[in-house]
């Protein structure tokens, strides 16, 4: 089982990495890039919520800060996009720490924490929509200048590999975390915060580290989004859509598992693509079909794709 656990993610990443070798269709690559950006965002959420049990409904705040950090650093200050990307991640991590400090110190747990994160994301959306520094409602445009040192690539496959590389890195990080002391503390907090505290776990510190890491990863997803689409406004950066996409990918895939968010994002977007192909002509029918399939998935796969696969494996061995 342990061997399978490490083997599976490796196989998935290797399989994904080979896709550009088989298809040069930009339609497929474009779809995969977007799905992986969502996957990365979900991986971030998964660390705080999947392992730490702190359900955030406002990861849009970190996605948006990562994206705005990346975009504004280059558009306003002329900083190199790679450095800007790092700055965006840093900004998201910082915001995560501050939001975490404020809400965890206040002892907000469960649905209260969920609500407060939702509120933070909304506040950011309104602020960034109004401030003139952020381009206000007109948003920020990143100048189209296709050069590798500019974090813009002529070929879609290069960008795809960059995104995949970051996803793989986070996957490794998560797998290490699962077996680390920090991971054990985090899971202990998820299972029973009071008991963890009684056993000497520094609950506030662990939660703060988790939210900072989580925010940094989701912020990276935001940064990648803006480098890919080169346009950002407050509704894209901080809109509820990304919080929902993030949640759904992680939960459908299997929260609290390393590979879950990646599989979830690919499955969700793959399903969306599939229904689009099936429905064809009438606009909106694919979304109806997608919704129906989603309901079925949630009804019959309560612990996500990974949970279902595990149970199948156990059942097969019986």
């Amino acid at each position, binding site marked *: 089982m342990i061997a399978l656990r490490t083997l599976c993610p490796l196989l998935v990443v290797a399989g994904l990495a080979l896709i550009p070798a088989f298809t040069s269709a*930009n339609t497929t690559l474009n779809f995969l890039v977007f799905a992986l950006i969502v996957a990365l965002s979900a991986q971030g959420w998964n660390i705080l919520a999947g392992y730490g049990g702190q359900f955030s409904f406002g990861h849009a705040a970190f996605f948006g800060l990562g994206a705005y950090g990346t975009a504004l650093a280059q558009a306003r200050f002329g900083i190199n996009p790679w450095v800007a990307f790092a700055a965006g991640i840093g900004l998201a991590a910082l915001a995560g720490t501050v939001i975490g400090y404020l809400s965890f110190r206040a002892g907000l747990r469960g649905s209260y924490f969920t609500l407060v994160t939702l509120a933070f994301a909304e506040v950011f959306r309104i602020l960034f929509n*109004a401030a003139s520094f952020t381009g206000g409602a007109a948003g920020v445009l990143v100048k*189209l200048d296709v050069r590798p040192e500019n974090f813009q690539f*002529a070929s879609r496959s290069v960008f795809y590999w960059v995104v995949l590389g970051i996803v793989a890195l986070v996957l490794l990080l998560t797998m290490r975390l699962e077996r680390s002391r920090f991971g054990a503390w985090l899971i202990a907090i998820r299972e029973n915060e009071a008991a963890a505290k009684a056993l000497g776990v520094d609950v506030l510190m662990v939660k703060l580290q988790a939210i900072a890491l989580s925010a940094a990863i989701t912020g990276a997803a935001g940064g990648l989004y803006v480098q890919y*689409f080169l*346009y950002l406004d407050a509704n894209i950066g901080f809109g509820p859509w990304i919080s929902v996409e993030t949640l759904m990918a992680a939960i459908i895939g299997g929260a609290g598992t390393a590979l879950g968010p990646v599989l979830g994002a690919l499955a969700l977007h793959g399903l969306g693509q599939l229904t689009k192909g099936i429905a064809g002509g009438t606009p909106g029918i694919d979304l109806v079909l997608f919704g129906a399939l989603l309901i079925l998935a949630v009804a019959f796969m309560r612990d996500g794709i990974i949970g279902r696969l595990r149970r199948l494996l156990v059942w097969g061995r019986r």
Partner: protein
Amino acid sequence: MTKLINRRTLLAGSTMVATTVAMPGILRAAEPPTVKVGVIQPVTGALAYDGQQGQIGAEAAIKAINDAGGIKSLGGAKIEMVFGDARSTPEGGTAEVERMAAAEVSAIVGGFASPICLAASQAASRYDLPYLVDVGVADSIITRGLKNTFRFGPGFGIVAQTGLDNLVKINDAAGKPAKTVVIVHEDGLFGAGLAKLLQAELPKRGFEILDTIAHPTPSRDMSNVALQIKAKNPDLVIPSSYYGEMVLLMRTLQQQHIKPKGIYCILNGAASNFRFVKEFPDAAQYLMDCNHWHDPRKPVAEALRKTVEASGKFWTYNIPMNYSSMVILADAIERAGSTDRLKIIEALNSSTFAGHIMPYGPTKFVGGQNQGAAPVNTQVQAGDIKVIYPTDFADAKVVYPYPA
């Protein structure tokens, strides 16, 4: 079931299948090849209504072009539409551009909203794929230096400037009845941007701004805004909101018996929309707007409007703008005599096409922007939307200040 299939039926069946499979090939060989043109509109999501209206315009133009014999320089090749739903998001638009590029379209028309146009035209530029923006007014769409991007309609800067100039002219012509103004705007890209411009420009033109009221989109209640207007009692109200909020505001003003001397809009979501005019004729009466509108003196435009209305749909500016963008593109393909993307871009750059149905005059693209493009002023009069300014295109006289 198995009983029914014997050798004979199988033979007959397979012959039939073989014939149907082979036949289209024979038929196709006799027809000239088609020119694939992509149409991107947000037909699901928040902008679905506008997207559907835009689609009507593009389809009507393609039908008209094909009925008139297609692209003659390509042996009467018909235009084949490859339709894509942008789902009201930039990434949705980008995904459709990728699909269309793979489907080998020669050009793309549409986008509607500025964020979609920005992302989609950028994705298209990777393939040197000509992209004709139908409505998107953000000035940044054409200031990025993309060689493939063209906009037939006016940008935000031109519309706002014209709107302000015309307001002064209309007010002056009526003996300057309005001196005080309240600005109402939605807090998004278009409303906030316009409000900022109005705040800077109106005082220079002799108007006093009493208040500027922002509201989010969507808003479910405009009573507060209406009461604030009532308290300030301005001569003129200038609202910049999308459809739902504007309708709500106008109905609330009517219910509260708030009657300023005029309500003047720039690029308003409802003021030049027949849905509003037909559903709430009293609330819409005498509303003025500076917006995109078709040229009412052109018979093709009026005929198209009749056809659309006969099919039970409302007439909105999206229809003539998409129609016009499509016929301009067809003209460019005609002159290029090729489906080559770069040749079409070249042909668009040298376009002097005047056969469109907007009040613009001959087309001339400079840096992608059609120089002739300008908005007109409309006013709701007795359940119809009339052009009141500039007088060259007008089909009615302005009613201002509003009769008591």
